[in-house]
């Protein structure tokens, strides 16, 4: 079942001399439970594409339809609310809230959703255990390694029970061991819980795990291969 449909998507930046088409007429569909890697050289438009897909940056034209909702037809407040309930984000630089512990970072998003204290507690515990951090619940980000922080970020992204997770170069700042651990976790979650992952990457190890590889260049999709 397709959960994301993208029609004729453009993102054009008007420079002083030259017009830059960061995303140039992209049409693509993502199915539920896919484990997709968006690959391509730097400047190919991967991050911009993910930002448009995640409702973070407004496209110049085109539609992003998630579960029959035109994301860019939503007003500011509704769009934020839509992200809260439908999309999980994992960023390259982890981007945890530094003053909150691992547990609080994961709980935070559920609190925004208005979930009960009991539910928050149980889900946070099980998610952090699932990413192998059951013993670091009360650690603040500065007491965690990069790999551990990124695993907390994955737990946070999952906490809201999103329809899909967008990860922008999630392993770019990790060593090989942490990358391996993180990928195993993401792959397990995808396989066992049917969670849809879409991530941009340069990393060959990530590409090797992906079951669908979309290659971008100059804002266009060059190839779309199901492995």
């Amino acid at each position, binding site marked *: 079942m397709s959960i994301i449909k993208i029609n004729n998507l453009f993102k054009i930046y008007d420079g002083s001399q030259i017009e830059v088409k960061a995303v140039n007429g992209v049409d693509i569909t993502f199915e539920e439970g896919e484990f997709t890697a968006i690959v391509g050289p730097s400047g190919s438009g991967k991050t911009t594409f993910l*930002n448009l897909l*995640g409702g*973070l*940056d407004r496209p110049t034209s085109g539609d992003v339809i998630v579960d029959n909702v035109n994301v860019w037809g939503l007003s*500011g*407040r509704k769009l*934020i*609310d839509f*992200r*809260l*309930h439908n999309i999980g*984000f994992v*960023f390259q*630089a982890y*981007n945890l*809230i*530094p*003053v*909150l512990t691992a547990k609080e970072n994961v709980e*935070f*998003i559920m*609190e*925004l*959703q208005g979930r009960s204290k009991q539910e928050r507690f149980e889900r946070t515990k099980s998610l952090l255990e699932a990413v192998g951090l059951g013993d670091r619940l009360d650690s603040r980000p500065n007491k965690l390694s990069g790999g551990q922080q990124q695993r907390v970020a994955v737990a*946070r*992204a999952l906490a*809201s029970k999103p329809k899909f997770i967008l990860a922008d170069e999630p392993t770019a700042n990790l060593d090989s061991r942490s990358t391996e651990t993180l990928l195993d976790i993401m792959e397990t979650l995808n396989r066992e819980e049917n969670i849809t992952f879409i991530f941009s990457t340069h990393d060959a190890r990530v590409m090797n795990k992906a079951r669908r590889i979309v290659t971008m260049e100059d804002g266009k999709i060059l190839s779309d291969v199901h492995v």
Partner: protein
Amino acid sequence: MKSNILLAWRNLWRNKRRTLITVASVFFGVLLSTLMTSMQEGSYSSMIDNIVKFYSGYIQIQHEAYWDNKTINNTMTPTGELFELASSVREVTHTTTRLESFALASSETLTRGSLVIGIDPDKENKITELTKWVIDGTYFRPGDDGVLIGSELARYLKIEVGDTLVMIGAGYHGVSAAGKYPVRGILKFPNPELNKQTVYMELSNCQNFFSAENLVSSMIIMVDDQYDLKPAMKELKAQVKSPYTVMSWDEMHPELLQMVEGDRAGGTVIKAILYILIGFGIFGTVMMMVAERTREMGVMVAIGMQKIKLAGILFFETVFIGLIGVLAGFAGSIPLITWFYTNPVKLSGNVADTMIEMGLDPYMYFSWLPSVFYNQVITVFVMTAIVAIYPLFMAVRLKVHLALRA
């Protein structure tokens, strides 16, 4: 809300040194401002207290025509009802009545116009402590038919204690008034004008002189201090009906009120400058806090936090700086003000001499008026609320994709 407040609190301590420096600026501002306000209000209170106790009292009940045309024909009969009414007001501590008019005061060869004041000696003394101004002779004894006169008047007329003062004037409704009275004492007030013209008589004696049987110019009413004035005035104004009217000290001494207001305004300007400087200090801190957390703010909005909630966190952070500063400032100023309130600073030298000459106590008093404190809270809250506009504005205008790249 609870987690937003917790988040704001923790954010505040991310850079402890910077927060403490900013809080310290608020602390010193509140400390100085509170001490200054307390000292100002204490001085005003003492000055007003001295002045009203010297003569007018805090409140007077008069015939409604008297204030604009102070003649003996506009006097009133102080009924028992009026006394009962005044005494029934909780804040009222003392009452007395006076009859005032003018007459010519003469000695053997000299004459001068004088202000003749008929008083109830006991009651008057409780309010104005008239005895303390007697520099020669004695104060009135019960049923005394003598007079007390101002020192300058005595000097001009060349009369002393034991001499006779002759008075001639116009009594009630133009009846001629004349009489001779033994001088019982000489009064020396801080006010030279009073020394030049005042003649005090026992009230019934004065009423006889002016043929103004049972008439008085005013009923003087005292309360403990100016803070009891408002409720007492409210009650008296509600109950005292025509042909009487109730006046408070500020209506009778508009120049004193004006002087206090003028001085208070000067203090307000100084405090405003102080708080503006502190406000800019807080603003600088808040700008830094926002600038270094742009990406984090972007993340929070990206994962689903409404901008208004983010703005709320930033608002709390700004308000916390002010709140901690105010509480710290109070922690510093309350013990100091308490000490100075109970142990007023004794002035010395020329300042003290001048104050004594003016009939004022040579002390620097401090006030415990609630407004000394809550005005600081209001000022700091308004200041931080204004400063908080900046982070609110930044939060509302946040572009998530740009913030994530910050």
